[in-house]
């Protein structure tokens, strides 16, 4: 009985999911590519992973325990990009600071929303000492989630228990949008990297499936996210993106606080960028990173930090290198 109820919910969800994909596809079949505005050395690569992707699934949408919260998060990322077409061309160093308001808000027992409003502060330094800065509101995202909680098999079917025992396993299905709340600047100057943007300027569809397991001592947190990228006003369309992450955590319960260290990996795969119906060479890429971090829960507060180091990467023909990233957050559990 319970299973069939769950099944119905899943089917409904899947139907809605497919309908959404079709809705997006339908508008993309007839893409109005006519103009776009951009200049970027070396390749016209606007690397989406740079300024604009901090709402990416590989960063996660919430806390380890998948609880509801409101909080703030700071993300530091550093990159190195080649500024020219030769192997000995100069490089530029980019550092991105992102300050996010993020939240996971309950609707009822099985539905919740996740919200993300970033403020971006992007810096780029050239070898000759020239520096650029861009800051402002980034691209916000909102996602609706359905959580499918699995329950332990009832051992005694004669007992009508109103309280079912949670097995600790759950699946989450999320659908949402990333909105162009960040400004996608037209080319500022010839030496400005358009990947150096606070926003992509596009409305993107976001689809996610997560799996969580949590017991008192141990947990797993897995998330796969797919981004269907729209085109922006400048008729530039970033490649679709697939992000994944898995973190294993353990919990040490103390009298007044909980410590949950975690270790895991995450990655992103980017399709090529499209412009005027043509894909651009060297605009795809992938990256796999290792993550280590910890959360500390003190009463209603969750303090978290993590450090991410790329294990392997090939981004944009090797012209962009992700160096590392670091995040810290404080959440207030709801």
């Amino acid at each position, binding site marked *: 009985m319970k299973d069939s109820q769950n099944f119905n919910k899943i089917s409904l*969800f899947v139907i809605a999911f497919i309908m959404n994909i079709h809705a997006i596809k339908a*508008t993309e079949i007839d893409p109005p590519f006519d*103009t776009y505005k951009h*200049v970027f050395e070396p390749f016209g690569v606007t690397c989406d992973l740079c300024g604009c992707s901090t709402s990416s699934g590989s960063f996660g949408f919430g806390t380890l325990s998948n609880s509801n919260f409101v909080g703030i998060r700071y993300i530091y990322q550093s990159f190195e990009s080649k500024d020219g077409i030769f192997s000995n*061309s100069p490089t530029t160093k980019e550092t991105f600071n992102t300050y996010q308001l993020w939240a996971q808000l309950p609707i009822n027992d*099985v539905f919740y929303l996740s919200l993300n409003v970033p403020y971006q502060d992007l810096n780029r330094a050239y070898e000759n000492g020239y520096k650029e800065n861009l800051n402002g509101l980034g691209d916000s995202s909102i996602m609706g989630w359905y959580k499918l909680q699995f329950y332990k098999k009832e051992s005694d079917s004669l007992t009508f228990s109103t309280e079912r025992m949670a097995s600790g396993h759950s699946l989450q299905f999320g659908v*949402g*949008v990333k909105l162009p709340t960040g400004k996608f600047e037209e080319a500022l100057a010839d030496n400005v990297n358009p990947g150096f943007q606070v926003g992509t300027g596009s*409305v993107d569809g976001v689809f996610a499936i997560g799996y969580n397991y949590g017991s008192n001592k141990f947990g797993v947190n897995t998330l796969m996210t797919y981004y269907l990228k729209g085109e922006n006003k400048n008729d530039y369309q970033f490649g679709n993106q697939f992000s994944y992450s898995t973190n294993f955590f353990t919990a040490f319960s103390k009298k007044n606080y909980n410590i949950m260290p975690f270790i895991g990996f995450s990655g992103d795969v980017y399709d090529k960028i499209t412009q005027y119906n043509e894909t651009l*060479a060297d605009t795809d890429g992938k990256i796999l990173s290792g993550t280590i971090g910890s959360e500390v829960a003190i009463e209603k507060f969750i303090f978290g930090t993590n450090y991410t180091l790329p294990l392997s990467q090939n981004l944009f023909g090797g012209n962009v290198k992700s160096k590392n990233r670091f995040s810290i957050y404080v959440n207030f559990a709801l």
Partner: protein
Amino acid sequence: MKILKYTLGLLLSIFIASCSSDDHDTMEDLTGQTGSLILKFDNGIGNQDFIFGTTYTNFKGETYQLETLKYLISNVRLTDNQGNTYTYPEEENIFIVSEANGNAAGEIYITLNNIDAANYTHVTFGIGVDQERYASGADGQGDFLTTAQDEGMMWSWATGYRFMRLDGTYSSPTKTNAALNIHMGSVGTSVDNYKETTLAFPNEVLVREAKEPSVHIKADIAQVFDGLTSVSFDAGYAQVHTDEITTGVIATNMSGIFSVHHVHND
């Protein structure tokens, strides 16, 4: 279940609303519209950026350093996706690409203005000066004659233009820091070394009134010496001036050094 339906319904409608886009004309009317295009010349040695004073090695094992690197580009033509050809106005259609004029990234810009708006797929240009332009006499050269003289790209009017100028030194098993001067050109009307090259763009270049697309052209200077023919400085290619044989070999090599690395549609 109601909430489920409402939530999904809401999300669905957000999607449909946000993903619908304005109607764009797929066929643009470009009649009478003009725009500009930048050709960025980027000199390299293989996959290395060219830098003055750096020691490079040719296939014969001889090493060389350059202190001058410049060449003439003329008769730039663009072919669009309909097969039409646009030719830049003849009088202005000659340029000197000089490494010394490169920006911080070592790129030399040639800006072409008032080009017919179109989606271009190929560029064709000549290296040097063709016989027709040369035959138009000193007056027919316009301001370019003075420019070329100032840049050291003329021998004399009778001999004509130097199409390229590579000055520096080379070392080999027998010579150390010997003079290296590659001054290839046509010799009056007796030797014609003018050659053209056509390069395809990896993406269409959209010239429009409100845009400034650019084409990044890589010039592999190593192929001047190791192109179709590999030459040896010691075997007569340290001083290339008006000799019919050696200038011809260099001219042929020179016509193959260019490739389009990428384009920007700005």
